[in-house]
């Protein structure tokens, strides 16, 4: 069953390449939409059979591949990966839908999109660290090409920068994996086996350090982030949606699964530093976002800030904060996807993303009123206004991290306040006021073009009103992930429990 999520798009990619070029752009488009639609259905079927009360990996598949190398085709999914897996399918569907209908080289474009989807799914599913790494590396190629071919004017620079950064990231991760296997003398790269390692703490710290930097580049964490704004600015809208929505999550997912999961002792040792790192990332990303004039760059820096919350939650490593972290991954995926779609929509119609140039786009007749209203919603969601998914995710992150790192948590909360500052600047400058002369004659926007943003907005609101629909998949898995953690979290949690016990005693 899980294989379907990898092989449908993979075989689909082959199929799209084989389409006769004379058939035009709509065949590859509809074929790939259909295929990704199929993976969405498969994900839903998985969801029906998925048992959230189990902490183990489910639907596991295992095929021997290159046994001497310890590389096996091992797949499985738990509550940590499942929401991300579904989000990958949904966001790819949305990205495909919002792709330019008349794009150049349609077959190559859709092939790469399918390839990207397949490799990301593979990375979320892999139960073998080497297999994970292979998918993690494969995903680079389509993404690199998607930026380099269909990007903006400086696409070459941005794509290469992206490639080099992520290649370094890959090398570091590989070093950590190989080092781990080598030092433990393991003959397999099976995650379950490697997890059992009992290396000396210093070695663990060194290996975790490599992973932190490796995945830190991907997340991205300050100061390894500068590839991201460039990549976002140059990438076309659907690619930005996938980049922010799904690909950054590979970083946090990898960090939790392999960093936190395999080196718990080192993680605990480093966690105060990680929490502080998170603060730096959050505040740095948010402050930098305020100074941006390009809407897309602003949203990109906001991503840096918001991904920092996930690191904070991971550092605290309490069951609640971990749940919050996963929800924040989904929430950030949906919200930043929405924001990139909207910014892209504005760019497609006005030809500009400059917040000093654009004005008054809420104009009901000649502006982009529906996109504008959705932008208000997206901005509010990103700023953590209740009723939308961002709030609950951030609340859980803060509530889960506060007992462990109170100061860092409070500092990170300032980041949410700053989010409101820059996104409001954006909304009020670009959408309020009188429509500026330069954008008085915009082409009309059709409902089909609004559909992706509207559906994301609906998801943002639905999960905001019923966050339990999101958390139920993850809770047991994340709790198990940190259950054997000798962290400060539990010490404090025990205190709290004692406290509340006392308060219960008092009640008549």
């Amino acid at each position, binding site marked *: 069953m899980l294989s379907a999520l990898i092989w449908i798009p993979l075989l689909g990619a082959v199929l799209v390449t084989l389409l006769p070029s004379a058939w035009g752009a709509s065949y590859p488009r509809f074929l790939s939409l259909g295929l990704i639609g199929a993976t969405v259905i498969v994900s839903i079927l998985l969801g029906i059979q998925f048992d959230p009360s189990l902490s183990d990996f489910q639907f596991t598949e295992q095929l021997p591949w290159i046994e001497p190398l310890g590389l096996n085709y091992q797949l499985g999914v738990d509550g940590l990966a499942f929401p991300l897996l579904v989000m990958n399918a949904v966001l790819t569907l949305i990205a495909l839908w919002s792709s330019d209908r008349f794009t150049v080289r349609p077959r190559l474009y859709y092939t790469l999109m399918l390839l990207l989807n397949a490799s990301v799914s593979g990375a979320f599913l892999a139960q073998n660290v080497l297999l994970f790494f292979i998918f993690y590396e494969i995903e680079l190629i389509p993404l690199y090409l998607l930026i380099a071919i269909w990007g903006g004017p400086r696409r070459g620079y941005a794509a290469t920068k992206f490639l080099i950064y992520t290649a370094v990231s890959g090398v570091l991760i590989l070093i950590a994996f190989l080092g781990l296997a080598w030092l433990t003398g393991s003959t397999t790269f099976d995650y379950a086996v490697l997890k059992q390692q009992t290396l000396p703490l210093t070695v663990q710290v060194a290996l975790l350090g490599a992973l932190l930097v490796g995945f830190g580049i991907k997340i991205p964490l300050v100061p390894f982030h500068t590839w991201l704004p460039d990549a976002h600015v140059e990438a076309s809208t659907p690619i930005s949606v996938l980049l922010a929505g799904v690909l950054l999550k590979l970083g946090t997912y990898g960090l939790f699964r392999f960093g936190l999961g395999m080196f718990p002792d080192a993680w605990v040792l480093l966690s105060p530093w990680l929490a502080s790192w998170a603060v730096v990332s959050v505040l740095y990303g948010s402050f930098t976002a305020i100074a941006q004039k390009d809407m897309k760059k602003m949203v990109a820096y906001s991503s840096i800030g918001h991904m920092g919350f996930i690191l904070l939650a991971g550092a605290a490593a309490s069951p609640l904060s971990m749940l919050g972290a996963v929800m924040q991954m989904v929430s950030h995926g949906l919200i930043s996807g929405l924001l990139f779609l909207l910014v892209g929509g504005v760019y497609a119609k006005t030809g500009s993303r400059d917040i000093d140039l654009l004005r008054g786009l809420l104009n009901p007749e000649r502006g982009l009123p529906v996109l504008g209203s959705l932008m208000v919603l997206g901005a509010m969601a990103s700023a953590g206004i209740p009723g939308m998914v961002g709030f609950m995710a951030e609340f859980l992150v803060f509530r889960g991290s506060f007992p462990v790192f109170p100061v860092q948590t409070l500092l990170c909360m300032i980041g949410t306040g700053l989010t409101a500052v820059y996104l409001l600047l954006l909304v009020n400058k670009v959408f309020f006021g*009188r429509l500026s002369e330069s954008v008085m004659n915009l082409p*009309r926007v059709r409902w089909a073009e609004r559909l992706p943003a509207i559906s994301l907005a609906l998801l943002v609101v639905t999960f905001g009103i019923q966050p339990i629909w999101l958390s139920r998949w993850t809770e047991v898995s994340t709790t198990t992930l940190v259950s054997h953690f000798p962290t400060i979290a539990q010490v404090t949690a025990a205190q709290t429990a004692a406290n509340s016990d006392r308060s219960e005693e008092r009640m008549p």
Partner: protein
Amino acid sequence: MPQKTGQTVLPPASQTLEEIVRRLETGGALLPNSPDNLIEVVGILKSYGEVLNAYRLNLTYIAEYQFLVLFPFFKYFNGEVTASKLLRHWWHDRINYEFSEYCMKAMFWHGGGKLDDYLDSDEFRQLAQKAIQAKLAGNPLMLGCNRLFPEFLLEQVRVMAYYSALGQFWTVMSAMFLDLSDRYDRGEIQSIGDVVDHILVGLVEAASKPIVYQVKIGNQTYDILPASAGLTFLMDTAVPYVEAVFFRSFPFRGTVTYNAQSHQISADQSQFCYGALYADPLPIGGAGIPPTLLMQDMTHFLPEYLHDLYRMGLRGEEDLRVKICISFQKSMFCVTTAAILGLAPYPITTTNPTEQQANHIYLGSWVKRLADSRLITLQND
């Protein structure tokens, strides 16, 4: 500050203004003549004529039958209250009569003309008091209120007088615009100049038409604006109307702040320039922009040739109301041209140089007043 060299070089706007004056002197209009402009102006005036007809029927109805009615729930029904009409009314599938009242309030508030003066005269007070006493005969509460607050009901009667006066003004105008459309359909209107001529002739014909207002209370008819007051169409409704609605009007809450501390709105009403000739058409359709109501009403009566022209735009039907507003402003400049020409000290065709000179100064002052209006923008469209 860089010094300007050469006194003769005028800023482009005043050059345009000079050109416009010259065009007016040679029988042209404020709006340049072009085939598209003609289609837009005639087409929109056709639609406007239909809307005005509905407005004036309602204004007259209110003035006659809703006189001092405390709860005029059905004032927009013109006396015909049926279930289906009520449902349509609730669904807001109707003419937005609120806008006609908005224009009436603009006239009332800005005043001007003999009508305004008459409403402050003792003669009017006596006439109005008679009608008030008759209307409220069985209502001691309101009569007491009238005694306590002597201006309260009087002010309401003044409003009613304006309802009636605007209704009478629009009766003439709507017929004039619909007639223009018929003549256009017959091929008699070929240029913007013809449009102006048509309106000018219509205004001149109706110029001395008396403005009178009576209400029937019980079986008795009460004069409010008697013929003896000598109020006439052109000077006492048309001119104040143009001043109040075309030029001054009210600042739109949607675009201008009423915050007293930021002093955005002049304390002097004669400095107001928020009227139809000045308003920015772009925010039409948004909140706090009253003319949206009129543009919305006109969407229902667009002649097919004009509608087709609009559909060809980049946005198709989506920015219909903005396009209507632009056309409407064009047509209002034609009406203004007719009014300006009609009020000129000498016929525009005069060959007498002193008369020409007087006309030149007169036209120059009007065009200068319009310098900040949409006039300049419409020259190039």
